[in-house]
């Protein structure tokens, strides 16, 4: 398939991008790594008439640590997370999850801001940010605001971002203890059929592809907090969830997988 026609603008700064978004309204879309947006345009599932390219805003490509908080620029590529020594030391889950996204070509293009804004329940990094209790910094016409990751994902491919807002930064707490990420897929390059991220020895547990958004598994977190075994806590992983059915897995099998991989992730994160 080839996309429908569109106009193309290059943003010179985040402010410029936001101004262009305000000017073109909901006809416009930001283009970052393009590895979610362009496939959707090729299938004509998305037909924006204006693309605002933020992919060249290199000042938004950084990973900094300050006082126990790690700040990551929105245009930071997955491969930069994957190979960051700072993350390897201070927040290894982010690096390790980034290394499991797609294939090397995808990781060299795709950005952290893009994957969060896209809000695909099957994506990996949103679940990591969610389990870590991260924060998303959005810039709009009236300045910046912080959105807790727990409030960010509002629906299927929908986020708390307004049409004229752009993610500029993502913050996660430095955290290197008791973490694990389990990704179950059939081919290395594919999205997770089910994924489970565990941070802080089970204080943060999130699920990939188990509903319309990336999800916190609160029942599991509560059970771990009250001293339940990994097996007992994991048994609650699919509680109350309505996971999707597709060619790889129907809802029942997904629920089963969520329990299996939650237990494996908890075990690997040190929860017995």
């Amino acid at each position, binding site marked *: *398939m*080839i996309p*429908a*026609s569109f106009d193309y603008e290059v943003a010179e700064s985040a402010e410029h991008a936001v101004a262009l978004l305000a000017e073109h309204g909901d006809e416009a879309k930001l283009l970052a790594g393009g590895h979610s947006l362009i496939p959707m345009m090729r*299938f*004509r599932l998305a037909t924006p008439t204006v693309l605002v390219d933020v992919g060249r805003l290199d000042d938004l490509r950084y990973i900094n640590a300050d006082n126990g908080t790690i700040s990551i620029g929105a245009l930071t590529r997955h491969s930069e997370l994957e190979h960051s020594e700072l993350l390897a030391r201070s927040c290894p889950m982010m690096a390790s999850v980034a290394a499991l996204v797609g*294939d090397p070509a995808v990781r060299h293009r795709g950005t952290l801001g893009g994957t969060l804004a896209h809000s695909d329940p099957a994506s990996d990094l949103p679940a990591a940010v969610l389990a870590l209790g991260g924060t998303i910094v959005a810039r709009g016409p009236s300045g910046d605001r912080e959105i807790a990751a727990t409030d960010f994902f509002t629906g299927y491919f929908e986020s708390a971002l307004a049409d004229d807002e752009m993610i500029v930064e993502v913050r996660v707490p430095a955290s290197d203890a008791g973490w694990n990420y389990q990704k*179950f897929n*059939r*081919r*290395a*390059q*594919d999205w997770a*059929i089910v994924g489970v991220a565990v941070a802080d020895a089970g204080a943060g547990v999130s699920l990939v592809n188990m509903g319309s958004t990336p999800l916190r598994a609160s029942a599991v977190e509560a059970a771990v907090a009250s001293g339940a075994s990994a097996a007992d806590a994991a048994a609650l992983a699919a509680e109350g969830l309505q996971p999707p059915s597709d*060619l*790889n*897995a*129907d809802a*029942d*099998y997904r629920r*089963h*997988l969520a329990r*299996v991989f939650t237990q494996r992730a908890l075990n690997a994160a040190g929860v017995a």
Partner: protein
Amino acid sequence: MTMTDDPATHLDSAGHMGRPRLRREDPALLTGEAQFIDDMSLHGEIWVGIVRSTEAHATILGVDGSAALEIDGVTEVLSGADLAPLWGEGALPCAWPVTDDMRNPAHLPVATSVAKYVGDAVAVVLATSRYAAADGAAAVSVDYDPLPAVVDIEAAVADGAPLVHEDLGTNESYTWPLIPNPEAVDEAFANAAHVVSERFVQQRLIPAPMEPRGVVAAPGVASGELTLYSATQIPHILKVMTAVTLGIPEHKIRVVAPSVGGGFGCKLNVYAEEILCSALAMDRGVPVRWTESRSEAATATIQGRGQVQHIELAADDNGKVQAVRVKLLADMGAYLQLVTPGVPLLGGFLYHGCYDIAHYSFECTSVFTNKTPTDAYRGAGRPEATYAVERAMDSLAVAVGVTPEEIRSRNFIAADAFPYESCAGLIFDSGDYQTVLDKAVEMAGLDGVRATQAQRRADGSNRQIGVGFSSYVEMCGLAPSRVLASLNYGAGGWEAATVRVLPTAKVQVITGSTPHGQGHETSWSMIVADKLGIDPDDVEVLHSDTAISPTGLDTYGSRSLSVGGTAVFMATDKVLDKARLIAAHQLEANEDDLEYVDGAFQVKGTPTAAVPFAAIAFAAFTAHDLPDGMEPNLEAHVTYDPPNFTFPNGTHIAVVEVDTDTGDVDIVDYVAVDDCGNQVNPMIVEGQVHGGVLQGAAQALYEDAVYTEDGQIVTVNLGDYLVPSAAEAPAYRVASHVTPSPTNPMGVKGIGEAGTIAATPAVINAVVDALRPMGITDVAMPASPQTVWRAINEAQGGAS
């Protein structure tokens, strides 16, 4: 017959053959220099966009192109009826009417009244760019009146099934039996100590070569000529068929296949788009082109497999099989493409596998459904046959109470039985199946693997180990023309080659075999170089353009080396024969006293008086001093018709680990021992085995063209249709065993399809072996995690 592990020692050459050599094709492919169809551009070209049916079966009430015509760049919208005069009576060809009463519905490039599958072309948009063509095609609205669709092949033959082709009165295309002695088969089953009876489903596969198809048709307005560029495996056959279909004189057609990015059989066809673009180009007098998109390829290009197989084995007490009985339902899809009906027959001779079985019964009924036509896909019929017999042999092993390797050993055709006449009437050329199996068993370290397996079983581990065997033999090197005639195939099976020595002693080889990834240029240059005692880099190999290589039958059925390569080999011999006469003339010696050593003729034992090849080449060119009556120049042409098929064989062993909590299958070891006869370039052989095995494993574990009950295809992109990548490939361990084929002078057999044929049953046998203690005896393909987990869950009494 001697056997050895080192392919080089067999070729009796100190040269290049038998030694690994990097492919000369690769630098251009890897750097992007190679030109594919979509890289072309011709002045004044127009683009075709195809409106494809969104219905599996529907009457076309009307085509409305008004919205499309509003789009910038869209110049015309044409319905099937508008286009019909362009091809008149000419329908897309089926070259293999396997029975005299085969039903073959007329297949127009663009449907006029009824759409018969999702993807069937129903209208055409002409535009000035590819983008406008795509926008235009999306904007055409077609008014459909849906008809009931037939999707499942067993349902298609049930009473009262809706009909794909109302006028035929049935969904059956043909029934083809091969039952040399029915009474003997019945008797064998009546007296059998063990009867194994199995039903297997071969899911449909989407070939998915790296390069989708594409066509550029360029007319010569003044000359009345047509140049057809196509991403095809068969420029020669396409040329004849285009002439016949459109009534263009054959000598006015030139077909060119530029670099072609893989085919796996799906480019062995004459497609609607080739005929459509050619007809439009001739009619409008401008170049007309089309490039297939990936999602279009899911339905516009043929699919592979699609069979329901019933196989029964009758064996004695010891598990020696006396008879095999097979009934097949084969899915043709909505129409018969070029060789659609013949594909099940290519397997129809091989359902006894590599076993010495006395009695044979095979019957295939082929069925129309409202789906994309099927046709040849890597292995074509032989993977299906091998799957059925190899799965059934494992069931027999269980029934008899012996290991899979033991049941195979008890039944193999013995090494001293060759040439061996099979119960299906073929003459197998050479082989030593037991030695091949022994070698595979040794490489796999089977004792250790089985010990681990036993331990895991005892521990109730959630990582169960399974070992799967697949011993195969295939008939390839297609094919003796007379045998093809007996099967009603519409062409011969020969191949042509020209070897032309240039004045400076460089050599041009012109081959009728059409490479699209196999490395002909490298292999052919090695053959010629060794015979002439020159450097392979001094040999150019030309192909794939009917103006350069006018005679040929192209590439499929593992035929290139054993038929096309043999023609090159023989043409080089002819060149040498003439060169010898020139040398004898120059040396004033008797030609019988000459020998050819290190690229020069000398009187036997007298290296001082030698005439180098270069001197002969130049003498042939100047023609100043040739023997009386000899024609100038040094060039020879050979058309080689093989006297028999060749019969590559081997044993593959897959070791899998099944995660019983999730159903995930991991191939932890894969051993392949193949006998493809002598090897020209072992590196190419190994590459073919690697790719072939992964493609076979893909059918076992990943790939499936999924249709809904109403005939909608679900897997139209590579996110949903799971072609595995290098990351999923097992760590292959590959070895060979050589029994040269006596059928051709190089003793070669073919390796293009072997891996695909062997791997599918090896992997599934391994999965079933892992799960057998749970009472599981079969797992449907592809054995996805969900499918395997469900089987486990059901076996353990859980809900399905």
